[in-house]
């Protein structure tokens, strides 16, 4: 008897563990996104006026400003649609989609082949906007933008370059007054799409980086070299407070906070400032090589004038939607976002999708179904 009770109990615990984690992750996300808890009735339609539909999205923090703008603007046109977006992070967004606790996920880096294979249905990657990762630094005596190559950045983060007045930095910055001071590199301590894009660029340009650190949302940083900080704001806080430090953050974040940003050497050999134009140039140069499933990293592209640490950000949805009404709303929203929504990108410092990529996204949105029936 008692044995039965215990095994029932353990089954209960096992069964509920995932739910517990999901709930706590969701609560954590809520806490981070600062939304009142009452608003996040995941997909529930009860209690609202008839015909109103709620969608729940969660994922990357990088596109949060524009997704919030979209949700807001779309709500004005379609008052009976309510979409909540929680910036829980790319990894959590992928997890929420896989466990079906969200109607759509969002991620800066594409899902892995393994995750796609194990998902409970085909997952579509819809690119929404483009962003970039910039290097920001705290050098009070340096007034002009610092110029850095992939090799130099890698050497700083690997601990091979320890001082700002190192010959390897001076070579690219002959006119700057670089101090004889220790460099403090700051990296993301939490798992982050920003780290994935940053390390992808360095892995592509520096073989030693690929071998020692690799491309990852949570790379294996060399211990003793730098300090980790949580989130874009954590990295910014650390860099702002510590003279002679350097860190990497999202372009939108750097622009919004007026941080100094380094010019990065691209494949063509030019030092390029991160801007909407240079990010668009990186995207335009890679559209021809975009694979069928649209999963692509566009770091270190060949194109002239391209900023080399750029990336797409994606909304992830199941191709076959479980609920036809919600699926229709989701498809309509994605269509609106990738067309009318793109006009809000520039003000928020994102680069809009190139027209060719919009065409590819259209095809993906049009392929969405519910119970096998097309939604568009």
């Amino acid at each position: 008897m008692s044995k039965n009770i215990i095994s029932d109990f353990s089954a209960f615990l096992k069964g509920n563990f995932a739910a517990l984690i999901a709930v706590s992750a969701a609560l954590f996300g809520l806490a981070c996104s600062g939304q009142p808890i009452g608003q996040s009735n995941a997909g529930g339609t009860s209690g609202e006026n008839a015909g109103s539909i709620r969608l729940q999205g969660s994922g990357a923090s990088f596109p949060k400003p524009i997704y919030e703008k979209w949700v807001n603007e779309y709500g004005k046109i379609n008052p009976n649609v309510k979409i909540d977006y929680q910036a829980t992070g790319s990894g959590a967004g992928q997890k929420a989609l896989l466990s079906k606790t969200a109607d759509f996920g969002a991620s800066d880096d594409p899902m892995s082949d393994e995750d796609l294979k194990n998902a409970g249905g085909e997952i579509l990657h819809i690119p929404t906007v483009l962003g970039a990762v910039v290097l920001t630094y705290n050098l009070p005596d340096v007034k002009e933008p610092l110029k850095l190559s992939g090799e130099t950045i890698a050497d700083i983060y690997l601990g091979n370059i320890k001082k700002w007045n190192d010959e390897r930095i001076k070579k690219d910055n002959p006119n700057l007054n670089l101090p004889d001071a220790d460099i403090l590199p700051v990296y993301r301590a939490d798992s982050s799409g920003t780290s994935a894009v940053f390390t992808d660029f360095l892995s592509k340009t520096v073989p030693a980086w690929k071998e020692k650190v690799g491309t990852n949302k949570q790379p294996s940083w060399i211990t003793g070299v730098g300090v980790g900080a949580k989130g874009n704001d954590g990295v910014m806080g650390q860099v702002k407070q510590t003279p002679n430090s350097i860190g990497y953050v999202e372009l939108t974040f750097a622009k919004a906070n007026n941080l100094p940003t380094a010019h990065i050497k691209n494949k063509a050999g030019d030092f390029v400032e991160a801007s909407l134009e240079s990010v668009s140039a990186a995207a335009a140069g890679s559209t021809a090589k975009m694979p069928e499933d649209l999963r692509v990293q566009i770091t270190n592209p060949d194109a002239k004038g391209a900023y080399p640490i750029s990336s797409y950000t994606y909304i992830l949805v199941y191709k076959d939607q479980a609920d036809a009404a919600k699926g229709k709303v989701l498809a309509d929203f994605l269509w609106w976002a990738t067309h009318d929504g793109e006009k809000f990108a520039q003000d928020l410092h994102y680069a809009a999708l190139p027209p060719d990529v919009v065409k590819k996204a259209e095809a993906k949105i049009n392929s969405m179904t519910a119970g096998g029936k097309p939604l568009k």
Partner: protein
Amino acid sequence: MSQTGTVGDKLFRSVLLVAAASILIIVAAMLYMMTQNALPTIQRFGADFLTGREWKPAQEEFGALPFIYGTVVSSLLALVLSVPISLGIAIFLVEQAPKKLARPIAFLVELLAAIPSVVYGLWGIFVLAPFVRDYLGVFLQNYFGWLPIFQGRLTGIGMLTGGLILALMITPIITAVVRDVLEAVPTTQREAALALGATEWETTRIVLGNAASGIAGAVVLGLGRALGETMAITMVIGNSAQISTSLFEPANTIASLLASNFAEATDRIYMSALIEIGLVLFLVTFVVNALAKLLILKVASGTNSAKHT
């Protein structure tokens, strides 16, 4: 005694029993659940998990030692800094301060206890870290630089700043509890001691001796908060999985690691590693608490026997 009285007592007793048992069940259930979910890494790494020094999720390499070290050292640092100050405040408030002064100070202490940890963290980044970098660290290196714990690069972010912020956070808790404990010591004891010609210092020592177990409880409560603190420590400790003798070097704690990575852990083995390290925190808390309690009771009994000689 009426019949209802015994029934009432029985009911009362069983309610208490359920309350007490619920804690046991909750702890047991948590341990069981965590062990179950940590099985993949427990089976794969065994004891290497506890002794390994490399934490590389990308390479599926998990060694918890730097985090155990960081957790224990930062918390002990916090205790060493905080306990004397907390005791001082509490003794002053109860034994010495005029009522007019005691009230506002006690109010301020309670106010500090209610500040959210993220606020402490922000204050740590913007005020404490620069202070450690520009003043405290420079001072320590100038005068105590021969000690290995004060050598190396000074960035303001690291173990020392982490310990300081924790000390600040646990001081109000320890102070508030110790104050209550001291107030509970009967006034007659103080009067008796004074009547026998004891000085104020001697009287206080007698009161402290009698309050020892309560003070131990206060310290353990503070220690619990220090061991489990996430947000504030994440923001100032530097989040680097290394074991360094220098207190100026960045480090990391288990709670801080969990706070920054649990939500994003996607693959099974990584999740298992994080849950196992949570289990380790459980054990570390247990061991450190037990040791702290033993130590304080020992010190207190020393005080007691001293007064008899």
